[in-house]
């Protein structure tokens, strides 16, 4: 599974980068995004959900978050 590190990237650039990364994988594949605590983790998961992707998990690890997501249509 691919991991996209979006730590240190601010809103909304992190969301746009996540969208670009999702363009490169197939529908149904899963991908991991690393997100900073604070605004990034509050905004990016819900924006990706609103875009139609399926959120499989969100776990805090050493001060950042790992978002696991399955690409939707």
């Amino acid at each position: 599974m691919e991991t996209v590190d979006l730590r240190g990237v601010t809103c909304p650039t992190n969301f746009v980068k996540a969208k670009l990364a999702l363009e490169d994988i197939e529908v149904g594949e899963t991908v991991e995004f690393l997100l900073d605590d604070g605004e990034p983790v509050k905004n990016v998961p819900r924006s990706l959900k609103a875009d139609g992707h399926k959120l499989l998990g969100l776990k805090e690890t050493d001060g950042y978050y790992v978002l696991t997501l399955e690409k939707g249509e």
Partner: protein
Amino acid sequence: MANPKIDLKNLKAGGFIKERGKDLFTVRLRVPGGRLAVDRLAKIAEVAQKYGKGYVHLSVRQSIELININFADFDQVVAELGEEQQKVASCGARVRVPTACGGCEYNPNGLVDTQASALEVDAKLFGTATGHHKFKVCFAGCPFDCPKSAINDVGFQGAIWPTLDADACISCGLCAKSCTEGALAMGEDGKPVFSAENCIYCGDCVKVCPTSAWQVAKRGYSVRIGGKWGRRPLIGTLYATFLPEEKAVDFIATVLAWYQEKAEGAGRVRLGDIIHKEGTASLLERLRVDFPEYILASTIPPQIVDTQLPLKG
């Protein structure tokens, strides 16, 4: 320009405001909720160019004001604006054009459709003579309250009551982290624990939840009454919670009727000052007749803001 013919009907609801210069007026336009079609905007620009001095003013209550309009041109200005259904606003002791934030259609923070509410109130209550003083209404979509609902005579603030679908919860903890009011904490079972007494109905938990485990159980407006700004500011206080959006017009009409009655003979006095004089119980009781399930058991009078003037000592 001797004896220009003016249709005085145009002046009835106000909106034509005398300027410093001889014969010149500001024409305040009616833009409920601050949203207008681009075609209307283009027409306003055309009229401003033709009859004004080449600029407009954006009022603090979301209207566009045409500047430097000669009163002899009123009829043409009204007629040409009317080609794009643009109407003139009001001034004086009337229900003013309601203001509103962008609302829920495109703003992710919006909890309710404030634009629809503003249009409905504008259509049904705009221009109603109060008999006493101005009467301002505003709609805020969420507790960020960009439109500043508490400094309106009747101010609405979007609200939601959350409920948790524990099976959909993935225990990420974002809701507890996002709740700035101390209404959510993670329990030992890894699920959030809701402390209802701390909730201000902001919906941040619903908005942040990545799996939609937090859902909207109830939606409506928190309603504050008696606010104003100006020389002697008052902060409006809470009378109703979760008032359904479709009841906003009737609610305002009830407050307005109470104001018209209680301010009789008081002169040019705003609603908040009348509440100070009459007490909150009388207004609560009146509202309880038609809106029993939404009205608080008690409230506090509009809160006085100390402007520090005149300087003491």
